[in-house]
């Protein structure tokens, strides 16, 4: 029994180390370094990153920006609750607001176009989870996160809240549409 006894040499750091340990430490260290360098590498060569762009924002200010977007670009309403679907121009700034317990508004985007998506919460913390591609971000009140997104596939996506936000958290679900891009940039009717 010796891991529960004092080490055999009083000066334990003089005990020789077996080669098997040295070899393993070397291999493991190389892997650890690879894992570290892969993160900056992906920032340069990968297409899925978050730049870290974010701003402080008050709930009131964010609400205003969202309402501007909705006023300008609403193309239709969905569900009994008349939730607006907005179709902003390709390449523009778009806004998505999280609140208890819905996402506002519904976004309709064009495939292959890049948008500056601003996300924030006006009350508690929420989680932005886009399904089925399964991309997930934290949404914080007071912070406006900016993601440059480029949908690559046409379809109907779900926007799920995956940060616990109270009793109706499980019902906080919305849609996001990605449609074929049309040349002149006008919304199809």
């Amino acid at each position, binding site marked *: *029994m*010796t*891991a*529960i*006894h*004092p*080490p*055999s040499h009083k000066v*334990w750091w003089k*005990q*020789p*180390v077996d*080669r*098997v*340990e040295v070899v*393993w430490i070397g291999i*493991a260290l190389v*892997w*650890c*370094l690879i*894992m*570290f360098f892969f*993160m900056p590498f*992906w*920032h340069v060569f990968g*297409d*899925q*990153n*978050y730049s*870290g762009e*974010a701003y402080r924002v008050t709930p009131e200010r964010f609400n205003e920006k969202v309402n501007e977007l909705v006023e300008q670009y609403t193309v239709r309403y969905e569900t*009994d*609750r008349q939730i607006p679907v907005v179709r902003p121009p390709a390449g523009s700034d778009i806004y998505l607001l999280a609140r208890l317990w*819905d996402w506002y508004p519904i976004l309709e985007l064009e495939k292959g176009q*890049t948008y500056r998506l601003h996300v924030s919460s006006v*009350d*508690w*913390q929420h989680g932005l989870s886009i*399904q*089925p591609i*399964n*991309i*997930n*971000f*934290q949404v914080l*009140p007071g*912070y406006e996160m900016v*993601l440059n*997104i480029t949908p*690559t596939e046409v379809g109907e996506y779900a926007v799920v*809240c*995956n*940060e*616990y*936000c109270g*009793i109706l*958290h*499980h*019902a906080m*679900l919305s849609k996001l549409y990605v449609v074929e891009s049309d040349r002149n940039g006008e919304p199809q009717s």
Partner: protein
Amino acid sequence: MKPEFRTCPDSGLVFHRPAENLIKANAIAATIFLAVGGLLGLLVALTRWPAVQLLDAAHFYTVLTGHGVVLLLVWILFFEMALLYFCSAVLLRSRLATPRMGWLAFGLMLVGASITAVAILQGGSSVMMTSYVPMPAAPHFYLGLILFAVGALIGTFIFFGTLVIARDERTYEGSIPLVTFGALTAAIIAVFTIACGAIILIPTFLWSIGYISEIDALMYRLIWWGMGHSSQQINVAAHVAVWYAIAAIVFGARPMSEKVSRGAFFLYILFISIASAHHLLGDPGLSTEWKIFNTSYAMYLAVLASLVHGLTVPGSIEVAQREKGHNKGLFEWLRKAPWGNPVFSGMFLSLVGFGFIGGISGVVMGAEQINFLIHNTIYVPGHFHGTVALGTTLAFMALSLWLVPILFRRELIWPKLAMWQPWLFGIGTALQAFFMMGAGTLGVSRRHWDMAFAGSAFEWAYPGMAYTMMALNGISAIMAVAGGAAFVIVIVGTIFFGKRKGAIEYSATRPEMLRGPAASLSGHGNIGLGAKGFPAPGTFVLAMFLLLVFVVYYFVNYGYLASVWKFS
């Protein structure tokens, strides 16, 4: 001197009576909370089984908050207090520093845990163990946690005090044993952890009673995870120490080299603090450089430390087995291991499960961009049941099955049940982790009452496979809980009904000084397969296999990530 010391005739350990009593009290409290928390876990898992959905939403969130707090904080910390007292007073044959303060610590922890438990049960504090602001909990939810933490801090200082006493009174020769060193690592991290806890929970408490108007959501997360993450490093240091202890107890294994094992523990202290960054990879408001640096410190040296223990713990067992003559081939040492002894099987399942399930998944999802695929999905609970349930909890169970009979001088009741216990709990938990990780990969959220989104204005259906996985998770949970119940039954049964092993007599004379085994500068002789310096070739092969799985899984995830929408 009062008759305060006894030497255990079975194990040779020396117990200082006040330390012994405190170890018993903390271990019993831990076991009771484990039973409660496990039951809550069963309710959670059965609710998340879509076809069963046992509880309604309000109860589910309350029970889930309870499950997280009771197991992650209360069970583990009570047990760790017992472990700290054991690794100091018992392993060093010393008297315990300030036993009265030990009872104060115990009382504070008990009262604190009870206050928080009441707050949760009252239903107004279903905020999850993370209690992210600005979602409010009742003030006594935070107050109980603060009292609990103060108690744990006192216990930690008693541990330090006992080390000082043991050194002053020369109760041992040379350096402290490796296991005590591991416990020391855990205790040092605990001080940092509890400081973070105080910095964030005290203002949050003041906020909840109206003295502070606002707490920034991001700052809360940053500091909360300074506590939440480091406390996991306490657990890792503690359960690695337990692995070494069990290797020593069951096999008489010596650390392959003290230098490497101690160095690895030391890395935990150096490279832990802000590694909480990996909880914030998907958050706005922190720069990319900050995230990448703080999630890895440029070389993942805390991960390296765990990889080192992953070799040296089984390696020390392999060396011990080979020296005993199980020296054929790569794996005779492992085949001939005492698989029917729950102390060993629990430890080994904990080691393998922690490495392959908890460890790999944790590091992979801690890579900045892969995190976007996993953040807040049920993959995350899958991962940490691999670390904290399979790794820490099972290691603590294994140690208890050895320690409780010694502490209480009673024979373990129902040895057959005890024999199956680690397998039930270990395999059940491993499957649970696996299925939660699978469902999370398909997008299912954590902390979510209904994956079918009942009551929402919209509809969305996860793939059928995700539903199947959540059902299988429920079934695995039943198995894990059966294993947990077996543990509680065996432990409680042993304490009350185990056959007595003879009178407990304390003596007034001080125990003899603890000495290390004779020096063996020669190294590990001629064992192994003949390769010089490779006394543990089987372990090396297993370690390389782990690394292979790790590397493949890492790049599979980046590969999948490359296929989704572009974002920057």
